[in-house]
């Protein structure tokens, strides 16, 4: 049986590792290479590295650093941040990255997703969708580059992204980011029912129970940041990942 993937999500800012809370208050948590090495030793299912400053700063991916990341990963590596062209994607794949994750470029024009999927296959391109609810509790599509909500139906954007060729959707709840207070299960349920491709849910996981709840709500995989880099009430930096037997017991296989 296919296992549910549990994916540490590492955020980069100016080549350092950070963790945000509700997409703000980026706290430095260490050196990315060191963290990736530890995660690889812990045999994580997969790893997602997102450079949250790249699109905002109009920067290129840091290829040299990403190549070092790939050199440490004997598991799939997904990179996101500042990817806007097929050529950039090609370069990343050549360095040993399996998947590129697009947000800003996909919001501008979904044809980039199609062009990458046509050349490298749908499995190699993810579209990351950030959702933020407004004061009425209505879910809105959000652009992490501009830090603003976008006037466009989010569920339709998910469907359009899949039609364009996205092999997976990364669904992030901005309001839950870094809170470790549980994931937005209603959001996950709605999104998962709408797309035929795997859904990676992110945002809010504070325990293995939260991960299980997201899976039970239809997510194919769960990604988490704070859960795997922070420890205890004071959020001391400690890199952890559950043992395989723990995950097996959690998912009851």
């Amino acid at each position: 049986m296919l296992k549910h993937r549990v994916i540490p999500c590492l955020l980069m800012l100016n080549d350092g590792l950070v963790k945000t809370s509700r997409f703000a208050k980026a706290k430095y948590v260490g050196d990315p290479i060191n963290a990736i090495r530890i995660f690889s030793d812990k045999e994580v299912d997969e790893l997602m590295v997102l450079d949250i400053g790249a699109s905002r700063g109009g920067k290129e991916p840091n290829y040299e650093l990403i190549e070092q990341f790939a050199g440490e990963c004997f598991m799939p590596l997904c990179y996101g941040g500042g990817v806007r062209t097929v050529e950039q994607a090609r370069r990343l794949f050549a360095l040993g990255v399996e998947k590129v994750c697009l947000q800003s470029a996909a919001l501008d024009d979904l044809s980039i997703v199609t062009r990458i999927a046509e050349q490298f296959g749908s499995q190699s391109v993810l579209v990351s969708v950030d959702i933020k609810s407004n004061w009425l509790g209505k879910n809105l599509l959000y652009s992490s580059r501009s830090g603003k909500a976008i006037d466009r139906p989010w569920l339709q954007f998910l469907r359009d992204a899949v039609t364009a060729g996205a092999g997976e959707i990364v669904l992030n709840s901005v309001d839950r980011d870094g809170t470790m207070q549980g994931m937005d299960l209603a959001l996950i349920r709605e999104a998962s029912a709408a797309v035929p491709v795997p859904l990676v849910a992110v945002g809010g996981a504070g325990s293995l129970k939260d991960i299980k709840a997201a899976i039970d709500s239809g997510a194919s995989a769960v990604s988490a940041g704070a859960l795997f880099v922070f420890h205890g009430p004071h959020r001391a930096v400690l890199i952890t990942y559950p043992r395989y037997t723990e995950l097996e017991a959690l998912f009851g296989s």
Partner: protein
Amino acid sequence: MIPSIAIPALPCGNFSSVVKIIEKVGGKARIVTRPEELGDFQKVIIAGVGAFDHGMSSINSGGWLGALNSFAITRRRPILGICLGMQLLCKRSEEGALPGLGWIDADVVKFRFDPGSSLKIPHMGWNTLRVQKPNPLVPVEEGEQRFYFVHSYHAVCRDPVDVLATAHHGYEVTAALSRGNVMGVQFHPEKSHRFGMALMRRFVEL
């Protein structure tokens, strides 16, 4: 010393991870750009991702077909296909129109689930193998071995004896196949931690 494993530099491939894991387990691999060089090597790995026709046209237009046939069929040296590389060993695929290498009597078909099924395509993530026959790559006695998969199409072998291992996604699908010196794995050993390293070490030491 001449590296023992050649990896044809097909445009459909992503080889750095494969080279890296071979080195990690003590082997030597080289990405080869000219088909006539294949004769210098003891083994070949066909690694690739993406669409079937793109893979076959990479082989055809690069002039690899003759060299690969001679390597696998005439000289009978070990050859391992990974992911799309495994599918290319088959006769044909629903995904494309071009004939495959045809060394394994199999068709590649898309996953088919009942309408309303919650199973996702691609089959993406970690899955365990059910080993179907004694083989040099994944010994039956090793216990549970899990590998990273990502594919939307899978091989259906006409001769069940060619099936090396299966995995379950909706139903049992071919996860690895072999006929003599020709072997293929649908999953990515280069992305499967120690399980992948063990498999690659066994291929290196063949």
